[in-house]
């Protein structure tokens, strides 16, 4: 249980000597499993640092293929990989840095029918998606599966970071946003634009929050980090409410598989938009 191959000491030595890390921390990471939903602007940097840190099993769910317009922010993908699955392209990039990684490549669309099955094998879920229906679906699934959801979002020059469903009293996404925003208030990356270094900063911190949770270094206080690359100061930390007793997901004993598979998340969020992933 508490041992590592000799060359892991060399590879991970710089982090193993940190306070609160050590050999036991590295062993925890080796036995941990994490799933990243979407290998896009947030998923690429998150995956990169999860892989480099030596997480034992990494799942990547993404049914999209690499496009030229992705490469300004989705830094694991290569010009050569344009046209291939993002999940495969990302896995290849991780293996270049760390060939020993175990990676589950899932080139399917996350949907109410398969979400629980796809996400169940992992300790922590990273929401690196780009649309509201999938954000509600991931939150509902994380509640049913009782797993923390490390959620990032980015648009234009701004980003947000929050860990949902963490610990016994952490809120879920529905605790904070019980009702989806009206469809007409929603833009897409295509309409709004996004800078790569902004998704990079948030995705990076998603990896960091994940590692903190796995190592037991997370303070579990519900908070939202707001980032505005042009703001002064650029960061603001918000103290969030705890789990809500009236939440239709995390405080509802009937919430479960059937309530997820009976929900049309796209309809719930106001209907289809041409560039949503689902």
């Amino acid at each position, binding site marked *: 249980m508490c041992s590592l191959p000799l060359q892991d000491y060399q590879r991970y030595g710089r982090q193993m000597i940190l306070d609160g890390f050590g050999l036991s921390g590295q062993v925890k990471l080796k036995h941990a499993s994490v799933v990243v939903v979407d290998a896009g602007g947030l998923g690429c940097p998150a995956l990169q640092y999860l892989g480099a840190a030596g997480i034992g099993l990494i799942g990547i769910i993404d049914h999209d293929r690499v496009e030229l317009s992705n490469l300004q922010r989705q830094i694991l993908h290569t010009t050569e990989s344009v046209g291939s699955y993002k999940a495969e392209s990302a896995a290849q990039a991780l293996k270049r840095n760390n060939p020993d990684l175990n990676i589950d490549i899932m080139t399917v669309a996350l949907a109410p029918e398969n979400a629980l099955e796809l996400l169940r094998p992992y300790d922590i879920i990273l929401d690196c998606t780009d649309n509201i229906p999938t954000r509600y679906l991931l939150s509902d699934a994380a509640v049913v599966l009782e797993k923390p959801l490390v959620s990032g979002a980015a*648009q234009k020059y*701004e980003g947000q970071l929050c860990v949902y469903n963490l610990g016994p009293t952490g809120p879920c996404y529905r605790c904070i*946003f019980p009702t989806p*925003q*009206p469809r*007409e208030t929603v833009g897409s*990356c295509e309409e709004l634009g996004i800078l790569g270094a902004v998704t990079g900063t948030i995705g990076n911190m998603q990896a960091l929050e994940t590692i903190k949770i796995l190592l037991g270094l997370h303070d579990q206080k519900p908070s939202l980090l707001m980032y505005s690359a042009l703001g002064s100061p650029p960061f*603001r930390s*918000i103290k*969030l409410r705890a789990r809500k007793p009236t939440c239709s997901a995390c405080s509802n004993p009937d919430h479960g598989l059937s309530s997820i598979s009976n929900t049309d998340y796209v309809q719930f969020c106001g209907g289809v938009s041409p560039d949503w992933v689902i």
Partner: protein
Amino acid sequence: MSTLNLKIEFGGGLELLFSNQRSYQIALPSLVPKDNSTAEESLAMKEMKALDVDYLIHHMRDHMLQERVELFMEKDTVRPGILVLINDTDWELEGEGDYKLQEGDEVVFISTLHGG
């Protein structure tokens, strides 16, 4: 009439509804109509309350908003997807719209982001 000085900030794109200005300093009366009407006539006739966040939101709609109301409000509160923060704390922990504003309070309105 005594007034309170408040700081308002916007994030997540909401500033676009407010002249694309991220930060405002405003002063509002410490006593306001209980029905949140912000027109200045006939204040004397109204039942009054201490200035709260509900009134602030109505004031912003009536006097600061540049664009369509439905992008900021729904019924008598902010629309879904907007988080209100009072001095860097989720307004749910402070009583939401009923929170009585204090001199120098900072109220932040952010729209949740969803891109990735």
